[in-house]
């Protein structure tokens, strides 16, 4: 098992999944209209030939990209790989929250019950940040004022550019060809053909909706704490610990312990949210 974990090229597979995600995203963008997000997303599912396939391919390849980069990160941390210097590591790890934001903006752009609510919650969490909250919201979401315009711009170009800036130095060291991972790509295609990507239409009288899986814990936490504490400070603590994961000696060990405990706590909140 340990050998399998260490020898599998998780990072390369994650990158290949990202290639599939970008290509399917380009195809989707040819039909998607951010002025009418829900109508547009449902048109993909119901009207446009192979629309549901392209949407599923984009959805699942993006999820796989994110999940495999997390596996890649964990394996690298516990494997024998060379350590990066602290500034280089912080630069690289900053790509993780950006990747998560990319995934999140994709959810929001569906414009369905989950997407719309998740976007509005994110906007209000941004606005709860003192001094810079309003500016940050204008940069990232501004859904109430602008609809999906800015979320879309960030999803298709802004966040990608930022992600590439953070991970470029890491990516340019490795050469990954899609041909090496033909079966993996075929697997993503087959999976997307069989399982349609989720969509939750607005329904009258619905009194409970669940956010994206990675923000379920946050959704639960927002019941008990102020939006600024639950939505900003709590995740920020985890991000700070990520920055020190690879540090030598005591700091690294403490950061790993903290990040692990944080994840267990967050997983607990996610389970509570799932049980509702």
């Amino acid at each position, binding site marked *: 098992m340990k050998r399998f974990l260490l020898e599998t090229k998780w990072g390369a597979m994650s990158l290949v999944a990202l290639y599939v995600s970008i290509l399917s995203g380009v195809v989707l963008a040819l039909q998607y209209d951010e002025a009418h997000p829900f109508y547009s997303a449902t048109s993909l599912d119901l009207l446009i030939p192979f629309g549901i396939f392209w949407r599923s391919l984009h959805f699942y390849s993006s999820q796989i990209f994110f999940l495999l980069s997390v596996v890649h990160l964990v394996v690298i941390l516990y494997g024998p790989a060379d350590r990066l210097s602290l500034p280089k590591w912080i630069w690289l790890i900053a790509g993780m929250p950006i990747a998560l934001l990319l995934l999140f903006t994709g959810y929001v752009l569906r414009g369905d*019950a989950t997407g*719309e*609510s998740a976007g*509005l*919650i994110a*906007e*209000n*969490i941004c606005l709860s940040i003192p001094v810079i909250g309003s500016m940050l919201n204008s940069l990232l979401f501004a859904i*109430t004022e602008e609809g999906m315009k800015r979320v879309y711009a960030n999803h298709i170009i802004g966040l990608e550019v930022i992600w590439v800036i953070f991970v470029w130095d890491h990516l340019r060291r490795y050469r990954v060809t899609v041909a090496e991972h033909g079966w993996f790509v075929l697997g993503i295609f087959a999976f997307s053909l069989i399982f349609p990507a989720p969509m939750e239409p*607005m329904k*009258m*009288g*619905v*009194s*409970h*909706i669940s*956010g994206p899986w990675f923000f379920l814990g946050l*959704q639960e936490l*927002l*019941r*008990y704490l102020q*939006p600024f504490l639950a939505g900003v400070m709590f995740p920020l603590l985890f991000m700070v610990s990520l920055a020190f994961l690879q540090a030598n000696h005591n700091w690294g060990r403490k950061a790993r312990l903290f990040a692990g405990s944080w994840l267990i706590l967050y997983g607990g909140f996610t389970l509570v949210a799932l049980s509702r």
Partner: protein
Amino acid sequence: MAEERRTFLLNGWNWIRLAAAAVLCYPLFRFVKFKVPKKPRLVKVEKLLKVGDVYLDQEFVLFHDESDTWAVSRICTHLGCRLNFSEKEHLLICPCHQSMFTTKGVMLAGPAKRNLPLFAVEKMSGENAKGFIVSL
């Protein structure tokens, strides 16, 4: 001695100029910070409502009973999710964190902490006019 006095006066003059600049900044900050209230937007609900009917718009819910017609915001005061009307409980419920409000917008259960705003409603008048105008 004379030089000391000159320095003291010069410093004092600088402090006065700084204070004057700060005083002038105050009206500037007040001016810039003020948010002009949004011009009311009128939404027509061209529908005749029977007593007990509920009309759901994207931004408000319109209620109509024997004595009154009123509109209450559909945006949760906690984190902005769109509220749904539960016919069974006769309450407005937030699907995100289950905050509950009465049909008059009064908060019953959190995490929301504020009541929902009410909007002015006018009955349309005229021969062919039917329905209501809601000022948002």
